[in-house]
């Protein structure tokens, strides 16, 4: 007989403490691999007896159930549906929590989701880039060496081609194919396009004329938001196409259409919208930087332009300033803003208890002090938001100081510590950095609290089937049928003692299931050493549930009692799991005696299924 996958999955779920006790479930060719939250809830003996489970062992923190080739996947599917219905895995819980967020929170959360997986790459590169670019500022000769050229290449790879990393990570976040995501990312920094970092110096920008769109042939180096949007579009498109394209041609039609449409929309709509936006930001930034109060505002909003990937255009402003006045007064604003993010990130690094966050926050803050703030912003500050806002405040105060004292530099392209040798007044510049970082640090230290990991949503009740048929009623309460099966009169129980009523009045049940559940809310008063009988009390009712006749002689083989004396149990809670086949094989009747042992002392006792 074919295995009943659903039943098998249900029984597995029942014996591991329900779906709420499952952290993750996976399967290989033959085994169901489960990561369990609380191993004490796992009933190993009962698991091995589940029909379909051929064996069980624990390894690498996983509970592995051998089910067999060809069936394990089906049991797995049922297992997910069984456990998913009552309780979800923790990741699902997280996802469910995310889906309840207001839309604006979801939007703010997306860059963080995208950046967290690529943090190792940008933290490494950011730190290295900061160091490599800082050294020549103090030791100019180093800038001429081959070592500098080589290390610079290594360091800036992740940043020069950042859209590729962002695109791949976004595809994962949005559920698109990561290779198609990579294609979109690569296309946006294709060598045939003009590099976004250098485009500012060009008089005329080559343009394609596609229908009525004029597409500037400029890459998206340093961009984040347009890449995320492009891949979001790609992922939606791809998933939609998979649904409607016939399977036979799906493999070539879907990727082709996905990439073509996404590319076109990216270059004609997403890109231009952003370049218009960028131009406004650029003009606005130029205007703001020209007076003190403006500098305060700019110092505050600067990190937002980093989040949007617009900061790469500021070279244009700086270059313009130097051309006009010989002094780059933009640099103190950017330095204040960046150094404030450093201060905020450092405060998080020192305050946070989560080791993983700490290990990201330290190198990120170091990198930020050298002027590369992306790791600190995306990895820490923007993710937790409050440190980011504290950083904005620090940037504003620092910028004001810089503007009031007329700080500036005759160079451009550097901020933070590497800019020290270039500034017109080193001591005042150091004060500005200290103010920016200090304000941000202090605010974070005072205002930011580490979020405690959310307690998993209230553990859903394990899949309990509450019995509904009443088998015994009396003045003190009623006894619901504790085992599925055919209810028979007490005197029909194939055992003189039970039938005679010497142990009290009650009923017999010819079981069709292998599980005894509590017939009412009560307290376990006794458990037979051989696991086949259990006593339960409530409101003066003393109940004996005895599985099988003469089964005491089986000495527990084939029985698993799930409760112990003194346990409080709820109606429907499993008490005993028994193996009907073993009882039959041992030559005994499997009739379950359900008796009120003190029925003589109770009033109005009435037996029989109702």
């Amino acid at each position: 007989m074919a295995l009943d996958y659903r039943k098998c999955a249900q029984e597995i779920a029942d014996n591991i403490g329900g779906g709420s006790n499952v952290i993750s479930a996976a399967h290989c060719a033959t085994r169901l691999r489960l990561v369990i939250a609380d191993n004490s809830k796992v009933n190993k003996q009962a698991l091995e007896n589940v029909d379909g489970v051929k064996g069980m062992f624990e390894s690498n923190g996983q509970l592995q159930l051998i089910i067999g080739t060809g069936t394990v996947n089906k049991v797995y599917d049922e297992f997910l549906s069984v456990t998913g219905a009552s309780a979800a895995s923790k990741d699902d819980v997280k996802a469910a929590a995310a889906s309840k967020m207001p839309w604006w929170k979801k939007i703010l959360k997306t860059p963080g989701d995208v950046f967290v997986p690529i943090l190792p790459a940008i933290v490494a590169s950011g730190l290295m880039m900061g160091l490599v670019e800082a050294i020549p500022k103090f030791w100019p000769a180093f800038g001429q060496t081959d070592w500098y050229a080589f290390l610079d290449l290594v360091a800036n790879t992740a940043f020069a081609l950042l859209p590729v990393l962002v695109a791949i990570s976004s595809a994962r976040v949005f559920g698109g194919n990561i290779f198609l995501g990579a294609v979109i990312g690569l296309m946006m920094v294709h060598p045939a396009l003009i590099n976004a970092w250098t485009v500012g110096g060009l008089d005329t920008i080559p343009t394609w004329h596609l229908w009525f769109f004029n597409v500037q042939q400029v890459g998206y180096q340093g961009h984040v938001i347009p890449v995320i949007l492009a891949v979001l579009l790609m992922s939606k498109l791809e998933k939609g196409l998979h649904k409607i394209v016939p399977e036979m041609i799906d493999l070539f039609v879907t990727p082709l259409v996905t990439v073509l449409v996404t590319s076109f929309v990216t270059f004609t709509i997403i890109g231009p919208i952003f370049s218009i936006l960028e131009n406004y930001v650029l003009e606005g930034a130029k205007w703001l930087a020209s007076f003190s109060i403006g500098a305060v505002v700019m110092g505050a909003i600067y990190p937002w332009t980093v989040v949007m990937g617009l900061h790469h255009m500021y070279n244009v402003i700086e270059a313009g300033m130097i051309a006009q006045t010989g002094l780059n007064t933009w640099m103190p604003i950017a330095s204040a803003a960046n150094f404030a993010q450093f201060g905020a990130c450092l405060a998080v690094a020192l305050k946070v208890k989560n080791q993983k966050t700490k290990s990201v926050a330290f190198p990120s803050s170091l990198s930020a002090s050298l002027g590369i703030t992306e790791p600190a912003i995306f990895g820490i500050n923007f993710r937790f938001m409050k440190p980011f806002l504290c950083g904005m405040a620090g940037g504003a105060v620092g910028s004001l100081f810089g503007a009031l004292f007329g700080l500036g530099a005759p160079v451009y392209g550097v901020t933070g510590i590497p800019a020290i040798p270039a500034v017109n007044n080193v001591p005042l510049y150091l004060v500005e950095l200290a103010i920016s970082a200090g304000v941000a640090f202090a605010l974070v230290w005072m205002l930011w609290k580490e979020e405690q990991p959310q307690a998993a949503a209230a553990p859903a009740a394990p899949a309990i089937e509450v019995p509904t048929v009443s088998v015994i009623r009396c003045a003190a309460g009623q006894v619901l049928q504790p085992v599925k099966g055919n209810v028979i009169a007490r005197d029909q129980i194939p055992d003189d003692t039970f039938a005679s009523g010497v142990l009290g009045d009650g009923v017999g049940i010819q079981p069709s299931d292998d599980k005894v559940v509590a017939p009412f809310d009560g307290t376990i008063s006794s458990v037979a050493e051989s696991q086949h009988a259990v006593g339960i009390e409530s409101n003066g009712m003393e109940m004996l549930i005895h599985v099988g006749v003469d089964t005491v002689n089986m000495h527990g083989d084939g029985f698993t009692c799930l409760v112990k004396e003194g346990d409080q149990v709820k109606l429907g809670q499993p008490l005993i799991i028994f193996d009907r086949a073993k009882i039959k094989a041992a030559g005994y009747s499997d009739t379950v005696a359900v008796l009120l042992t003190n029925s003589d002392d109770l009033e109005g006792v009435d037996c029989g299924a109702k």
Partner: protein
Amino acid sequence: MKSFEYTITDPVGIHARPAGVLVKEIKKYASAVTVKKGDKAVNALKLMALMGMGIKQGDTVTVEIEGADEDTAAAAIEAFFKANL
């Protein structure tokens, strides 16, 4: 108060059926009957408590009988133990 010691010979010990029969017997008398094994003692009228002691073959129990009819009850209950347990 009367008491006697008895070593169980029934192969299943004081389990459901023997316990039920015992309770039935003890109910005939007015005296309170306590069954002790080691440091555990239970009211012998409480079937579940009696079973919960897990008294097995070879275990020695002390039975205490106290009440108006303790003399007759003690004799009868001891005889009952020997015959049935």
